């Protein structure tokens, strides 16, 4: 596959929900329900996508070519999605952007005050 000419950095920053979906697909293809569940478990119930929100995101990701239907994982009714190469690059770029932010916060010693603990 020829490399995508688009620059993934142009798409940044991503909304948290969208990044969660990419994150969830980063370790393998999943169908919708699995994505919702994986995100919920990973965040300890902190992020619960509704089906409406999820498929709004899925539609946009499909349109932009960041994910695609999986040829093998899909059944008649239920399709599985996987990251495209470009989608992965976008996810990586976003992760790098967040890392840089966190590093900057670290340098400023920006931690929650322990007094409350």
């Amino acid at each position, binding site marked *: 596959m020829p490399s995508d000419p688009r620059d993934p950095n142009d798409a940044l920053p991503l909304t948290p929900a969208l990044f969660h979906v990419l994150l969830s697909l980063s370790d393998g293809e999943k169908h*919708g*329900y699995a994505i919702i569940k994986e995100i919920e478990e990973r965040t300890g119930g902190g992020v619960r996508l*509704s089906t*409406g*929100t999820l498929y709004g995101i899925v539609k946009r990701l499909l349109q932009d070519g960041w994910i695609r239907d999986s040829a093998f994982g899909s059944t008649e009714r239920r399709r599985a999605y996987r990251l495209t190469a470009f989608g992965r690059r976008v996810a990586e770029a976003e992760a790098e952007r967040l890392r840089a932010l966190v590093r900057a916060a670290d340098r400023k010693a920006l931690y929650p005050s322990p007094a409350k603990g």
Partner: protein
Amino acid sequence: MSGDPAPKGDRWFGWLLRLFPREFRGDFGEQMADDFRDQREEARRHGGRLASPGLWMRTMAGVLRQAPREHGDMLRRDIQYAIRLLRRSPGFTAVAVLTLAFGIGTNTAIFSLADGMLFRPLPFRDPDRLVLIHALDVKTSQVYSRVLRVDFEQLRTHHTGIGDIAAIGNRTSWTWTGSDGLESIPVSAGTPNVLEMLGVGAYIGRALRPGDEHVQPTPAMITYTAWRRRFGEDPAIVGRTLAFDQGTVQIVGVLPQRFIYPMQGSLASGELLMVEPLPPEDASNPRAGLFTPIARLKPGVSIENAQSEAELLIRRAAQQFPETTPDRAVRVANLQFALFELSRPILFLLVGGAAGVLLIACANMGTLLIARAAVREREIGIRVAIGAGRGRIVRQLFVESLVLGACGGVVALLVGGLTFRLLSAHVPAHYRLLPAGLEARAIGFTAIASLVSSVLFAVLPAMSLSRRDVTASIRDRRHLRRTGGLMKAGAPLVAAEVALGFILFAGTALTVNSLIRMRTVDLGFEPARVLPLGLGSGPRYPTATARYDFYDALLQSVRQLPGVEAAGGIDILPWSGARPMRGLFKSNRPDIGVWTITPRYFATAGIPILQGQDFSDADVRQNAAVAIVSDSAARLLWPGEPAVGKMLPGDTPPQRRVVGVVKDVRSGYGGVVDAAVYWPVSRETFRAMTVLARPSGDPRAVAAGMRTAAQRLDPTLQVGRPAPVALMLDRTISTARFETLLFTLFGVLGLIVATIGVYGLMAFWVGARTQEMGVRMALGADAARLKSLVLRQASLPLVAGIGSGLIGAFILSRNLQSVLYGITPRDPFTYAAVVAILVGAGLAAAYVPARRAARVDPVVTLRAE
């Protein structure tokens, strides 16, 4: 597991999913339903019954948030697609946008013109509670502006429904001596409470209030327009004192921009407003009157109740003052209605005419879109084949229409703004409350008009499309392009366009015809060559002879001016709108007015002497008992007999002998002919007259000479600037000219758009039948036959349209009666001309495609087959 809740839950979720666009549902609906079922099952497994409602809430919120976004997304893509398509056919797009822009723009301009009078609330506080009170003649049901003072007092003191009552008088002229002689400014006076009652404040400074009538110098407000025109919006105007011959005023404030004098017409519209109490001594004077009182009804009082109580009170006033007529009442009417009562019919006619233009434009757009949809059948068929639902296609058509409508609306603002500016420059004085330009209301109106018309013209193509089997178009393109569906759907639309165009153009033809007749009517005198010399308030001489000597001297010096061919005088100018109080008979018979003139008046005004001769100077010197009669007076008094030499009948003693008969004089364009009797002036009974001159060369030099002659005779005199009567008369038909301009605008636009419609339909029809034409030609049909085939096709909608237009115009033109002069609304000649013009325009529009059909090369088209 699947026993009880799952199917019900699925059904509910199915309903929820309906909030998404169909396409989205098609792509993801099943997955979402499955996912949601899994989520529910899991929730039940882990959290029992309590987890489920939380999941439902979250899911519902998610759908409610996401569904509108998806719809918006669809719409955006539809709009992008529509713009791409429209840019691909710039010719179609340009015609469509321009058609709409003119259709809607006309309406924008007319809306701006009529809005303040018809729809927008008056610029007063709670205007719905304000009423205008007219006098009513019970016998004739005629309303009059002048209300008896005793009735006014009765209403003011005893009417329980009236909170406050005020009045504004007719404007008067206040004068001062400027650098260039006498200047004047129109001034209005209202009762002290008038602004308080209306709820009008000041733009800057303060509003007039009760008590101002006792203040010296007299407090006055200036209208916004006068402030701008005369003082360049200088805020230092507040506090300035202005000295006039009639008194000194101090400007205390500027009236609001949208102020309007609450009187019918423009009679009250002074540039200065001051307050003045009604003369207290007239309060019980049964002969005193005042003009159109305005009242504010107390909250909750209906106009009907106010009316019946007023009737009771007026009856009581009539008993109290037996000198007054008992056959009177008052009419209490909503202020906005009453102010524009007289303009209403014509305003609605204009609104209707503009709406007609828009309807034609919409019909034309419908035809264009049908033709386009037919051309695009293949493209649409393919989209259907790859899975676009019919609803999707119809929606796409609607979006295209909306995009066209929006573009049309934007250009319409431009067209409307320019049209409105053009109209404002010619607008007659009784069109009031006009905005300075397009205001927010007009822009909102334009937006709504664009939206409504886009939907209107999108409906037909959408219907014609969904009725047809779109998928068939891929199978056989030619078959569908040859469909008769276009003619079936398009021809009635074009017929409707032609019918509406006919009606509008008939309106144009009638009003133009009427204006021409009005303008070219034989006035009986030569207005372009008559210069009247106006003398302000007139010289104040105590005796008739002194007055006569002054005027005689003035007349003599005017006669000696270089470039004066003739000069004469008359007591009441026939074109002034006034008639002499004196009649030949005191009662009974149809009266004939008596004018008093100097010798050579007829020569000056250019009125031909038909028989006999003019008065001589000796007639005046000797007080000769002679008279001259007008042609119609002669026919009235002595039908079929020569009038010269007859003794004039009449109630006033000296029996006068008729020495001449002159041509009838009309009181102006569109005016009437008054039978007239002329007496020579008499030094002994002389009151006043207007001196007229007939210049042989440049009227301006003569006019200046006339002014100096008068000022030299009496330097204290206020002298006007003589201008040819024709100029003044032209102003009297400004309303007719304005309305004719509008109807011409409607008619010409309607005609153009309808012609485009005929052309578009036939061009498409010919285009779709190129093959058939080729076959016909190959089979031996000649060019002339093909042309006539096309023209025959075109004549169907044309004839149907003209026929129904004729009927429509016959019915509707009755409404034009009031604006027409010298022509009936069903003038056969005018109608014949309109029919001819529409047939001509229609056939010309059809001829262009017909010629193309006749040029078809059979070999080329058959090879394409």
